[in-house]
């Protein structure tokens, strides 16, 4: 009896993956527990081990690209057995090597939903109607982001339309939704693929008729014609290297676009005196008994978590009309990798000792940098820290990582002349920038939070006790 090896689900949000490489060849005798292949999901590469023994017969290769979860990628055969012809999905016989740890409230909620009497678990597939999914495809938006209003919590077509409208409204606050467009004009615009919303501002207070749309089209055509043969063409003819965006890049693009379109970001900056923090760390470094000296990221994660406990609104997410206050502080730490940005998440920061955190971060960050973090280690954050100090960056404006509502940007540590008690003094300074979602938090509370973080940096004993 041939065992079917299927594309495993390596994280709750994973619905497809890519084979990076097979670690065994077709014809190899594989034993249960041996590593079979490397799979890349949304943001990480995971080694998958076999849970059965047999002679490997590979069906799908890295060249096959994106493979849906559950699809047969190989068979494990008995001696002399022929592989079956069909490729139907089956129960997974391969599992990711280590069990992913689950702590985030977001992830927990998803789990609960799935176990809620669903006979055929469809991971990450909330109830939705075909019309909703088709409409989302037409609009080029992700239907899973819609707020369901249908019976049995189904996402209906109207929910997708609502989502599209709110995305559009967030993207162009200047747009005037009151502009009226006649059905004929709208149909004409749709038939030539013209996005009327880009043009309505030019017709304030007017009802757009067919002639107006025709005029817009004529104008666009003439612009296109005059530009033909000009620099555009030169650029088109010049050799350019094109390469596929890749999964991680496109995911980053999708999330960043979503963030900038949906959120109302405001950034506050402050310069803090990190001399005490540096002194503490140097002191720890000097002590041979300390195995793992907490990095600045670890220290910042802990002190931010302490500050977040006092300012829960910054550790929250907006879901539809509701604000969800997360009970744990899961701090994501942005990590630059060769493949692009990833944000490994350190969970339950508020409840864990500095020592535990230091160990955890020491282990997780390098692994994430190599692309080996598990998918579930890259999701479920409630607040993000992004540190560009290592690149001599003084300050920058970070973008919020959805569905979180704030992100802290950390600049470099630099010795500066500052005035202390009316005297010039050399202090180690660091600039912090907080971007927060103004839909959820106002400037005052956000400033008070950042002020508290500044205080914790300057006087670490405030949160060490």
């Amino acid at each position, binding site marked *: 009896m041939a065992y079917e090896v299927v594309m495993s689900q390596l994280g709750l949000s994973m619905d497809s993956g890519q084979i990076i490489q097979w670690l065994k060849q077709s014809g190899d005798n594989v034993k249960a527990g041996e590593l079979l292949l490397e799979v890349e999901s949304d943001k990480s590469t995971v080694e998958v081990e076999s849970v059965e023994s047999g002679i490997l017969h590979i069906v799908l290769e890295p060249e096959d690209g994106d493979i849906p979860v559950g699809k047969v990628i190989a068979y494990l055969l008995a001696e002399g057995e022929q592989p079956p012809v069909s490729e139907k999905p089956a129960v997974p016989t391969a599992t990711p090597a280590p069990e992913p740890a689950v702590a985030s409230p977001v992830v927990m909620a998803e789990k609960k939903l799935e176990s809620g009497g669903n006979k055929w678990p469809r991971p990450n597939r909330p109830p939705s*109607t*075909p*019309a*909703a*999914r*088709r409409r989302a495809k037409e609009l080029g938006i992700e239907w899973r982001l819609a707020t369901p209003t*249908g*019976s049995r919590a189904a996402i*209906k*077509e*109207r929910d997708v339309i609502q989502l599209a409208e709110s995305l559009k409204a967030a993207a162009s606050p200047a747009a005037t939704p009151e502009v009226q467009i006649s059905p004929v004009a709208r149909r004409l615009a749709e038939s030539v693929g013209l996005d009327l919303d880009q043009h309505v501002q030019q017709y304030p207070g007017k009802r757009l008729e067919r002639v107006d749309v025709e005029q817009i089209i004529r104008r666009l055509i003439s612009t296109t014609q005059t530009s033909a043969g000009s620099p555009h063409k030169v650029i088109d003819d010049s050799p350019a290297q094109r390469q596929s965006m890749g999964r991680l890049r496109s995911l980053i693009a999708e999330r960043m676009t979503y963030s900038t379109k949906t959120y109302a970001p405001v950034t506050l900056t402050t310069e803090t005196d990190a001399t005490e923090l540096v002194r503490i760390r140097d002191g720890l470094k000097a002590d041979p008994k300390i195995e793992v000296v907490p990095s600045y990221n670890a220290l910042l994660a802990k002190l931010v978590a302490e500050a977040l406990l006092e300012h829960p609104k910054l550790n929250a997410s907006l879901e539809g009309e509701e604000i969800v206050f997360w009970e744990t502080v899961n701090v994501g730490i942005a990590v630059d990798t060769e493949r692009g940005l990833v944000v490994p998440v350190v969970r339950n920061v508020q409840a864990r000792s500095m020592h535990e955190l230091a160990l955890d971060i020491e282990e997780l960050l390098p692994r994430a940098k190599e692309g080996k973090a598990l998918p579930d280690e890259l999701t479920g954050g409630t607040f993000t820290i992004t540190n560009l100090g290592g690149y001599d960056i003084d300050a920058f404006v970070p973008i919020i990582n959805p569905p979180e509502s704030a992100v802290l940007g950390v600049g470099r540590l630099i010795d500066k002349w500052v005035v202390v008690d009316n005297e010039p003094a050399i202090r180690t300074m660091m600039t912090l920038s907080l971007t927060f979602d103004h839909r959820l938090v106002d400037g005052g509370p956000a400033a008070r939070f950042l002020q508290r973080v500044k205080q914790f940096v300057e006087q670490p004993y405030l949160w060490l006790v």
Partner: protein
Amino acid sequence: MSMHERIGTIREAINEAIHEEMRRDDRVFIMGEDIGVAGGVFKVTAGLLDEFGPERVRDTPITEAGIVGLAVGAAMTGMRPIVEIMFSDFTTLASDQIVNQAAKLRYMTAGQTSIPLVIRAAMGAGRRAAAQHSQSLQAWFAHIPGLKVVMPSNPADAKGLLKSAIRDDNPVLYFEDKMMYNEKGPIPEGDYTVPLGEARIHREGTDATLICTSSMLYPAFDAADKLAEEGIEVEVIDPRSITPLDEETLVNSAIKTGHVLIIDEGYQNYGVTAEIAARVQEKAFDYLDAPVRRLGAADVPIPFAPSLEDLTIPSADQIVEIVHEMRA
């Protein structure tokens, strides 16, 4: 298409169609139980005997298999028989002749013969006629290749569809809902025909589609009125014939509204509603914003007790409720 029309009942429309076709083509004749002297138990064939005589208007014994068998034979010789089966429940007695002979002979003779036969039968519940005189068995015949199945819902269609059925070279079952005979409406005068396989949109709407056969048009209208008061505009479509089926009109409406309910007085299990639902979802799947819903007769032998019988028939209230559920 004629210029003039008058207001009349479905009974009158059918009667007129038979009169006109018998005048037009002397190969057309009619057979059945009590259709001649008595003018039919529902008085649909009144006046035919006087005008056309006993040669072309034949009262028969109570022998459904025999009547249909004779008609199949007559059709093979070039006649164009109309057979009345008093209650559609009795088509089961003639089913060998209908299913194994009428439906098959044109194919089995490679077209050397054809069976231009019309079988009219009264269907439907509501007349306190109990379990053996109240059924709607159209799905049985729609299941058989080689048969056409026509279900008029109003006087104009009743006339136009019957004339087309009589002129069709294939066996056609023509089901008349016995509760609808007195339903009034315009009847186009003269040579008015309605092609088989063309649905009729009775009411346009954008929010949901009601596909209803035969007398189910009327609860659908009532439901549409009630829903319109709430601002829900439903489209009401009568396929008019279920074989051939005007899939295009039904699918287009489904694409337009995204919500489809099919109502037919046959039993819901494995019924006409099931077939139409399957076809609509196959072609309009990506446009459906709710599962396609069906409403048929309750799956029980039709009760004799009036209070219970009424509960087996699809009602306007049920339609309204289902539309609400679909749009929830």
